[in-house]
């Protein structure tokens, strides 16, 4: 009986200690983490590992593994304009990941801030913000993207803005629901008593306690954004050429897939594996969060 409170403390301490690398014990999460870090590393070191420039032109339609007239080796072949497919897939990773992270990050900045404000202040402000979020969420998401991008033009900036506009309401709803629960905790009351400002309480006291759910959500959302950037590129509304992005590469080459499928298949595999990695990572993180 006497050691009960103590064992509780010990338990809490050990739980805290193993909470970070716990993902190591989930094979699903580990597989996801490996795939994601592989893509991240490829994107980061694209200038070092890509054999050629992504826009340099050699002989067109070379099959994977063949050698060019100058003795160059093309592991994944060349495309219809004679550009090295491997280099384009590698540089495509850099571009797709850069904009996916940028767009998801900006959606998070907006969504988290609005969610914190709506959940903390409640009242009419919450009503207005929540109904606005519901209106945006009632659009089928790709319809919203197509309408926005085709009206304002396909540029990197507009894609980031459109993704922020379409994703922030979903993030806002999650954060708001969490804040409604957390704002009644003792540590919030104690911060209010010692006279902290509302923004300090929102961002320093409440926000860190929403992290375990938000990290899982961020992985999933990064996957959605990657798909979105791919889909927009595929529909011809994406990042402008000639710099490669996977969706655009698929769209440019799919008509020639009957005789040169390698140009289309490799970008497909690249985007699918990245999204799979993010989904597996989210699954693993959710599992290890539930075990607490």
């Amino acid at each position, binding site marked *: 009986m006497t050691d009960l409170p103590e064992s509780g403390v010990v338990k809490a301490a050990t739980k805290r200690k193993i909470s970070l690398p716990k993902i190591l014990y989930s094979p699903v999460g580990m597989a996801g983490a490996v795939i994601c870090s592989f893509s991240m590393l490829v994107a980061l070191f694209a200038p070092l590992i890509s054999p050629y420039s992504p826009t340099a032109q050699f002989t067109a339609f070379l099959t994977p593994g063949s050698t060019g007239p100058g003795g160059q080796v093309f592991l994944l072949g060349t495309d219809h304009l004679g550009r090295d497919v491997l280099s384009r897939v590698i540089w495509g990773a850099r571009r797709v990941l850069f904009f996916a992270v940028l767009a998801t990050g900006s959606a998070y900045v907006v969504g988290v801030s609005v969610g914190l404000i709506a959940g903390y202040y409640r009242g009419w402000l919450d009503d207005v913000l929540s*109904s606005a979020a*519901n*209106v945006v969420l*009632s*659009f*089928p*998401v*790709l*319809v919203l993207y*197509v*309408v*926005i991008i*085709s*009206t304002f033009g396909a540029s990197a900036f507009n894609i980031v803005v459109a993704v922020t506009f379409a994703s922030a309401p979903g993030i806002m709803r999650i954060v708001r629901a969490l804040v409604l629960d957390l704002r009644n905790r003792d540590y919030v009351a104690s911060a209010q008593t010692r006279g902290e400002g509302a923004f300090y309480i929102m961002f320093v006291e409440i926000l860190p306690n929403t992290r375990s759910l938000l990290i899982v959500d961020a992985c999933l959302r990064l*996957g959605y954004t990657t*798909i979105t950037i*791919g*889909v927009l590129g*595929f*529909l*011809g*509304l994406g990042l402008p050429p000639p710099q490669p992005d996977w*969706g655009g590469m*698929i769209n440019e080459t*799919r008509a020639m*897939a*009957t005789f040169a*499928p390698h140009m*289309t*298949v490799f970008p*497909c*595999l690249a*985007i*699918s594996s990245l*999204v*799979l990695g*993010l*989904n*597996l990572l989210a*699954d693993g993180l959710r599992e290890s969060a539930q075990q607490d």
Partner: protein
Amino acid sequence: MLKFIGKRLLMMVGTMLVVSLFTFLLLEVNGENVVVKVLGPYSTQEQRTLWLERNGYFEPAYIRYFQWLGGMLVGDFGQSIKYRAPVADVMWPRLGNTALLALVVFAIMVPMSIIAGVLAGMREGGILDRGISFFAITTTSVPEFASAVLLAYVFVISLGWLPATSAMADGFDPLQLVLPAMVLILFGFGYVARMMRAAMADVMQSNYVRTAILKGMPYRRVIMRHALRNALIAPFTVIILQINWLLSGVIVVEFFFAYRGFGALLLDASLTQDIYLLQACAMVSVVVAVSTQTIADIGYGFLNPRVRFT
């Protein structure tokens, strides 16, 4: 219950009104833009002014908004620029084609994903669960445009079993529906199956299922009588909300396979800036999405009486 339904319906109408205002502002408030798109870039200023005058563009924006809204309510969406025909004549047949595709997708996807989800959730962590879960997460991870490419590569180029496009140029051909439907089924299956599995696994851990097993009830009866009924409540909403997702999915799939449906029409209208057609398509897709959300909410209220009182 009536109050609950009334409240949901009121919210639905409100959302649609706000969305209609949003669509109107985004696309039409700039009359100068519209006329260039209708008459072409080489029309004279005089022609443009005349056209604007005749079509009431010098009226204040709020009057035009209500005229536009009123026209839509009676099914008058204006003229399509590209097709030179009333928008309604162009849009409804296309929507019918997409409804057919959606029907095929749902008729196959829903039973398939429910069975897979139940089998996986029955014994959490078992071999069957691992296999189904891995398959489900893989199919939801492959974007529709990538699976369209990969499936076309296998079934059209390598095996030669299926036609590459689904334009139905020589009349209706069920074979041409197979690939578009397959792409949509694969993507949706993973999501619904995962939801079903989670709901089933939840119910299997509940006290009443444990009691039923412990009192010696046959396993099959426990599943059918106790577990399944309760596990089906949550995925009901998920399945209805798949209609919303399908409206996005058909854009990609119909574009890829050249299927003459609503999604391809919406994309085409936005790329050619066919303003009235685009407005009509955007509004129709939102109306479909919002009404299915409302149906999902009300249906959930029927199935699970607890939510009615929150």
